[in-house]
């Protein structure tokens, strides 16, 4: 970028860019931390697959992120499951910046869900993968 082009930049443009960048760097740091934790996810007891799963979810400042499940697919019959059927109930704080959440599926809202272990991802409102989940759903 030439000196002439730099002079044309308005301070408020730069402030917007670097203000956003600061938040992004925090996200990037969290993504790397999550990536490192993923390496040990095979030992996660929640991956056994019950009809409901209790999870510890990062909650910066005590605020629980808007959670959703995605890419849920039955391990036996290969059917997809609508992630919006997954419900999350906060069960209170579980440490600094951590909240205990119970995750289950509202089977009455789904139609003819084929019984299976559904494996997928738990993501926050920005789509960042928080962890993998496994739920026993259907009948």
């Amino acid at each position, binding site marked *: 970028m030439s000196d002439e082009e730099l002079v044309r930049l308005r301070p408020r443009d730069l402030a917007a860019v670097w203000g956003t960048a600061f938040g992004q760097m925090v*996200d990037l740091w969290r993504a790397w931390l999550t990536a490192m934790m*993923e390496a040990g996810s095979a030992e996660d007891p929640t991956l056994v697959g019950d009809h409901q799963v209790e999870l510890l979810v990062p909650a910066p400042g005590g605020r629980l992120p808007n959670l959703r499940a995605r890419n849920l697919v039955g391990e036996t019959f290969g059917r997809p499951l609508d992630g919006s059927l997954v419900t999350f109930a906060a069960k209170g704080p579980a440490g600094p910046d951590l909240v205990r959440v119970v995750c289950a599926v509202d089977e009455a809202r789904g139609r003819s869900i084929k019984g299976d272990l559904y494996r997928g991802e738990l993501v926050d409102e920005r789509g960042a993968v928080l962890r993998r989940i496994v739920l026993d759903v259907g009948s």
Partner: protein
Amino acid sequence: MNDQTASWRRPDDWDKQRRAMERTVLAFRALDGDDTEVTEGPDPVQAIRNLADSGLHRVIKQRILLDGLLRTLPDERDERIDREVRYLLRKTLPGDPDASQVDEIMDLLDGVAGGDDRQRLQPSHWGVFAGGAREAYGYDIEELSFSSGCNDRLITTKMTPDEQPRDSRLIEAQFWSDQPPMAFARYVNPLNWPRCSSAWQDMRVLSGEPRESGDYNCVFEEVVEINDRLLRVPLEVGYRERPDGSRVWVRFNIARDQYRARREDGDEVPVDVDTGLVSAELRPGGPARTLVRATKYLHMADDDGMVPELACDAGWPDLMIAMAERCATRWPREEPVTATPEPSRTARVDAAVGRFVDEVVATCQQGIGDTTPHVRRLIGRFSGASWDPGWVNDLLAIGKLTAERYGAVASSVRGLADGLGNADRGGRP
């Protein structure tokens, strides 16, 4: 009876074994003054004696006894019951135990179950008893880690084939083993359940072709007898084995078409929720290498609460403990089932690597797709009249997607390591 079971005959004493379990459970329920479902039951003295004399596994006998004693208060037991309890403990002790050994185990049992409140058998109760009696009985890891959940609280809503919600009983049982998962494949396969447990009468094939090994889908008519009720349930089954031998499982659900057809014929299926899973899986971090687990959600169409209770206290744990000993005392030696083909180490490694490659390629493809809009925007920042400083944000967004992709790849690497480790250890028995 289908082709797979035609050559096999149920041992004559299996009905006696099943009744011995159920009668003892019912006898203790009747002693329990708070239990309103069972007000009259079999004579507890005779029930415990029959349980002790049956050919059932010692863990089944001891767990039923422990559960019964936990449910009753000390003043609801008399000397005759205590004498039969001692008889059962002595019968299950190895060798020729003397009175002091039996006294020692009796004290332990009273310590776990002799409180002044009514309880339900929890994993912690069995843990304390089995831990204390470990030396006397010489329990192995399967027996020590055996756990099943029958505490009346495990109820969850499941949908019937007609989409009606029902509060269904969750029945769980599990144990850990040092054997590889494929050592349990023969017993995970529902084709062989009637050979393992006294509650199963038959698994008749209604459609599909079940196999002794390898994946298959099939509809069975499961025939089980619980509390002298013969239940015939059409079950849709999916049996699966991972090529690297790290997991074998079966999923079963009520077969909806057969369920509706039976109703139209006036032959109602007695259960309206019957779904679950039996699996054996490598689980790093546990007390042994493999977790063998069975879950079942059950609801009777006529709301008969005793069937799920007895399935939970007797039938399901009996099947699981039979698996734990790999049906050693029950599998007829003269009629061995065709051995599961042994894959070579190369095949197991190939399967683990193949799964890893598939996962990583899928992750990368998804990553490329997610990154494309950011890259396009990034290039656009430099092609205008002047550079747009927003390229910083695009670069950071791409970095975050990359980090997430590495996370997924790291998880796959862990799976690969487990798969290769399993191949090195043999994968199959």
